[in-house]
């Protein structure tokens, strides 16, 4: 019976949009009766006094305009049609919205095989409190920093920028969380970073000794007769501040400038650094030394690489070399989930140098589990 009433309501909506006034009047009666049968509170909510008055006003204005242009009789007819159409469309919309809730819509997306859409809609609902929280914080900062109305208005674009960046960060975290939990429904089926051997992901706090640890590891492996191919990126400091990076080939010790700090607007790859092609070239050369029996060491895999640029093509080529015995990748803590999501490795271990301390190199070597 309810399904029949729903069909009647749908048919009435179609009928009221035709040009025949008598058919429209009949359709309006049917629509109101069907809607009342389906959901009386929805009809009451849709036809509040204010709404009804607004409809009457719109119909009256249209009637007057058409009466002026064509004639009074036609004006009344068209005004009446406007009133009927507004009534029927509003009532039908109110019934429809109350009949469909978010949960049922999510279930429906799953039923019709659009699971990803359902997940995205669910994520958007779950993320609303975080967006609201971020908006509140951004607004509070904006209010505190602004001096007077003019200053606050001038800062509005900055407010939007910060809010958008917050939103992007929440999206990054959501993707990372999905990767950490092994959720793959939202992932793009692109070629993963395939590694067939034990992979050690080295992480830790900024300036926490990651590069020192993998340099020590390289020396230790070299002493043990295990060939190493790869590089470390070392910070160039002036007065305790990081002013750039240089890259060092772990086998030859050769160094090249990789990046120099510049003004924010002049930075590349979305960083405050300008990159030097010589550094990337040395990275490619160092990784090209990879051969059977090698341990590949990459310090570091950054956001640029995780987007497929920077050193990533050279890393892919090195990892495709048959017979490599292990892979060590350095990554900052925030990017560990993204790297793990990108890796197609059956055997991966994460070593945090912040926890391993002075024994970091030994811990990484142990994690590599190379038997000679």
């Amino acid at each position, binding site marked *: 019976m309810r399904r029949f009433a729903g069909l009647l309501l749908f048919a009435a909506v179609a009928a009221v949009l035709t040009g025949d006034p008598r058919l429209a009047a009949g359709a309006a009666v049917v629509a109101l009766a069907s809607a009342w049968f389906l959901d009386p509170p929805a009809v009451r909510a849709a036809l509040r006094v204010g709404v009804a008055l607004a409809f009457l006003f719109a119909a009256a204005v249209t009637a007057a305009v*058409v009466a002026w242009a064509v004639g009074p009789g*036609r004006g009344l007819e068209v005004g009446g049609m*406007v009133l009927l159409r507004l009534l029927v469309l509003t009532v039908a919309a109110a019934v429809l919205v109350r009949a469909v809730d978010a949960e049922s819509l999510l279930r429906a997306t799953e039923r019709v095989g659009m699971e990803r859409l359902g997940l995205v809609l669910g994520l958007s609902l779950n993320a609303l409190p975080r*967006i609201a929280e971020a908006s509140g914080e951004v607004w509070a900062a904006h209010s505190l920093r602004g001096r007077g109305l003019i200053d606050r208005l001038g800062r509005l674009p900055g407010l939007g920028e910060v809010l958008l*960046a917050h939103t992007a960060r929440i999206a990054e975290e959501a993707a990372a969380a*999905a990767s950490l939990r092994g959720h793959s429904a939202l992932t*793009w089926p692109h070629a993963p970073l395939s590694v067939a051997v034990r992979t050690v992901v080295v992480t830790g706090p900024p300036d926490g000794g990651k590069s020192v640890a993998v340099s020590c590891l390289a020396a230790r492996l070299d002493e043990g007769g295990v060939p190493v191919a790869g590089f470390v990126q070392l910070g160039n400091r002036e007065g305790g501040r990081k002013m750039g990076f240089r890259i060092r080939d772990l086998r030859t010790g050769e160094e090249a400038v990789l990046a120099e700090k510049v003004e924010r607007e002049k930075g590349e*790859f*979305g960083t405050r650094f300008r990159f030097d092609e010589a550094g990337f070239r040395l990275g490619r050369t160092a990784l090209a030394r990879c051969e059977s029996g090698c341990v590949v060491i990459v310090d570091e895999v950054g956001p640029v690489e995780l987007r497929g640029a920077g050193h990533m093509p050279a890393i892919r080529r090195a990892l495709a070399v048959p017979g490599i015995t292990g892979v060590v990748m350095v990554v900052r803590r925030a990017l560990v989930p993204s790297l793990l999501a*990108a890796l197609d490795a059956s055997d991966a271990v994460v070593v945090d140098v912040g926890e391993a301390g002075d024994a970091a190199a030994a811990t990484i070597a142990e994690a590599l589990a190379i038997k000679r």
Partner: protein
Amino acid sequence: MRDARAWTYAALFGALWGALEATVGTAVYLGKMPLRGTVMGVLGLLCLVCLRRLQPRPGVCLLAGVVAIFLKVFTLGGFFPGPLIGIAVEAIAVEVAMTATGGRAIGAAIGGAVALATNPLQKLGMMWLVAGSEAVESYLKVGEDVAAAVGLGGIRPLAVFAVVVAATALVGAAGGLWAWRVAGRVARRMGARP
């Protein structure tokens, strides 16, 4: 690489857009603020262009539009057809323009122009749907009569409407370019290639 970010970005930017529509949009709609469609259109452009610049994958703007409509309907915003159609048209316009231009600034400008220019067209369309073509013609005739009565007999309502559409398109193009600039700064903050 397996990367869920395009989906999560679309979800989050769509959520932000939907939240703005449901809160700011509902407030300006109920408050009858002038140029509310243009204001909300520029806010939507900001979300869409930034999303497309951070995640340059075809379809993300459409998905964000679906999310924004979903949130607008099922949260505070309610079922007002005008804004919902506006959101859908804006998402489609930006998506098509950005895809056709390879995700460049010109795409943001074209998308913004088309998205905002459809605001007055959408109002005309709704009037046509609810009141019929005869009423639309009557409005035009009354407009001509009123213009003639105040000494502006040479001005045709359709020409005025075309000027309004063109002006809105210009505002949209400027809004699109501004959104592109802001998106670049957001991309730099996020460490993405600007």
